């Protein structure tokens, strides 16, 4: 009824090929952005913003990165957390070496370091495929994690071995460091995520994205069609690690605010991000957001939300129930829709198109 494209005529090829060809979708996007930029800071309290929204945005960014590699190019990686770590440590080194440079610029630059490391560890992808490659990327995970502990230069020889996030201001407002308000950090996160998602969207809808998908669907066929496998795969690794790196920098600088970083970028995080991508929907940008919400935010919401609703659960028992519930939900969602939450979303939209008179 409301969601019809009837009457929307496309007069140019470009309009027909637009990412959001339907007007309602564009309105919907605007509404979501409005909620994100205005609604949530207005109605959410500090607790909600700091423990749900910021982590959600950070994980969405990382999931988009991995989705480019796994969902669009078909290369499974279990080293995402390590690449995030590279971003975080680069950002820390950069901001301590060049304290005057704008921290947001440094976050974006630190992704480049991560991209370089990603390309290096992406080299085996030429010979190795599937789960074999996944385990090969574990080499990156464990080696880099070891470096984070063992190379004191990375954390400026701090006795505690931890990263201490210094305060950095933007227009006189603290953006990082303990004095930064959750709202400020949220806006910075949101800005980065929106801009980089737009960038990713343009990449995957363009020539590069198409060659990625060709490689994913069948790399030999893609090669025969003249797509250079090496370049395509390595660029996928680079772009993916870039996103991961920025996400890592956001994670430490805007969310954790310092601490034991080697303890953060563990194999468990790598797995979690892979699961966000799968649950959300492989090869779907919006799926990355759904996946992040499901895997990262759902346990938090259950943990703090259930007691608030009066469910008499606490401490260890609640944790056990949360674990079981999340496990069961993962299985249920996979059974209902193996192609991820993104597909459910699409189905929902399709149903809505024909509502209330389905044919």
């Amino acid at each position, binding site marked *: 009824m409301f969601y019809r494209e009837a009457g929307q005529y496309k007069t140019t090829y470009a309009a027909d090929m637009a990412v959001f060809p339907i007007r309602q979708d564009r309105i919907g996007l605007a509404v979501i952005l409005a909620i994100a930029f205005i609604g949530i800071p207005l109605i959410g309290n500090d607790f909600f913003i700091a423990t749900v929204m910021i982590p959600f945005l950070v994980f969405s960014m990382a999931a988009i990165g991995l989705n480019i590699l796994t969902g669009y190019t078909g290369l499974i990686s279990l080293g995402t957390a390590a690449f995030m770590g590279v971003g975080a440590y680069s950002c820390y080194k950069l901001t301590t070496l060049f304290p005057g440079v704008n921290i947001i610029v440094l976050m974006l630059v630190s992704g480049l370091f991560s991209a370089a490391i990603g390309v290096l560890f992406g080299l085996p992808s030429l*010979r*190795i495929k599937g789960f*074999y490659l996944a*385990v090969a990327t574990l080499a990156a995970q464990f080696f880099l*994690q070891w470096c984070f502990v063992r190379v004191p230069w990375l954390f400026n020889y701090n006795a505690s071995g931890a990263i201490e996030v210094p305060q950095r201001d933007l227009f006189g407002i603290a953006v990082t460091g303990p004095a930064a308000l959750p709202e400020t950090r949220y806006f910075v996160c949101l800005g980065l995520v929106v801009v980089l998602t737009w960038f990713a969207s343009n990449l995957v809808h363009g020539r590069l994205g198409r060659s990625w998908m060709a490689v994913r669907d069948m790399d030999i066929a893609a090669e*025969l069609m003249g797509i250079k496998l090496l370049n395509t795969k390595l660029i996928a690794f680079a772009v993916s690690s870039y996103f991961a790196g920025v996400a890592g920098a956001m994670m430490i600088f805007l969310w954790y605010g310092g601490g034991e970083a080697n303890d953060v970028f563990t194999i468990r995080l790598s797995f979690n991000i892979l699961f966000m991508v799968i649950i959300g929907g492989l090869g779907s940008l919006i799926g990355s957001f759904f996946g992040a919400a499901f895997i990262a935010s759902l346990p938090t919401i259950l943990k703090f939300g259930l007691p608030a609703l009066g469910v008499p659960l606490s401490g260890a028992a609640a944790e056990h129930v949360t674990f079981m519930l999340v496990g069961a939900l*993962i299985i249920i969602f*996979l059974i209902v829709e193996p192609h991820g939450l993104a597909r459910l979303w699409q189905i929902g939209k399709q149903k809505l198109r024909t509502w209330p008179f389905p044919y």
Partner: protein
Amino acid sequence: MSDIATRPAPNLLANGWVKAGLILVAVVVLAIVGAKLDGSGTLYAVLIDPFQQMVTAPDLLVQTIWEGLVSGVLYALIALGFVLIFKASGVFNFAQGIMVVFAALTLVGLHEKGVPAFLAVILTLGVMFVLAVTIERVVLRPLVNQPDIILFMATFGITYFLIGFGEAVFGGSPKQMITEQLYLPKGAIDAKILGGFVSFQKIDIAAAIIASIMIAALALFFQYTRIGRALRAVADSHKAALSVGISLNQIWVIVWFTAGIVALITGIMWGARSDVSFALEIVALKALPVLILGGFTSIPGAIVGGLIIGIGEKLGEFYWGPLIGGGIESWLAYFIALGFLLFRPQGLFGDKIIERI
């Protein structure tokens, strides 16, 4: 449709990217070596000193290899659980690690409740069977014919569930493995050889023997029984197996149950070496390099891979680890596996990957 299995490997060096990458690797290596190059001579420390140590203290070399052998066997045991399931159902079972913990916890937990040790073993096997049936019914059957990665994801759901369930039932505190009650030997045999002593733990010897027996039994089972043949048929092709009347569902239950038995034995052995707690789950990750080294589909591969990784990482850590501060064991295994993979992308014993267009 042409078979291009014999396609020659592309000349990687012809590509600028690879060259650049190799140069980068070389620079990094040189930088690390260079950073350590001081009066004592790094090259000496890397290339000569370890071998001198091996010659001058052969007892330590023997001990290192023995340690490597034992941990290799234990890695192989975990890898075996993965391989069994991957072979028969194409599922990369992320839950194998937690199954090890869960089986060991059930055993110890039952014994704590006053069940005699061997009855507890039987009951634990019963629990693992129920688990296998449940997983088949609830998870695998509705997800039949889905891509590998979806099934992989589903096993993550199982992991989450089992963590919560296991802790809710048995509590999170670490427990002692009931080695004595199971008549597992204790103590060590100290052999005085080569001008020193080498100590063989009886429990390690037992682990090696039990693992060998189990692997032999599995091999016989696969080779000579009806179910074994059916399993191999399923591993070759699901559709062909179905068409000759093999029940996939039944096979899956059997495979998951077998993996459960393997998990229980692994749990007992690892539990005897330290204790039974949820931290054991991490050890299961060690099976991953073994898997890629040996190939996902090969039982001999899991064993040989386990031994190579076990011995390789122990030797590496013991003789070369101190040069860069130690603790390299955590990633050395993956690099060993990666080195092998670059020459055999399907692992040492894995099925040759044939790609068709």
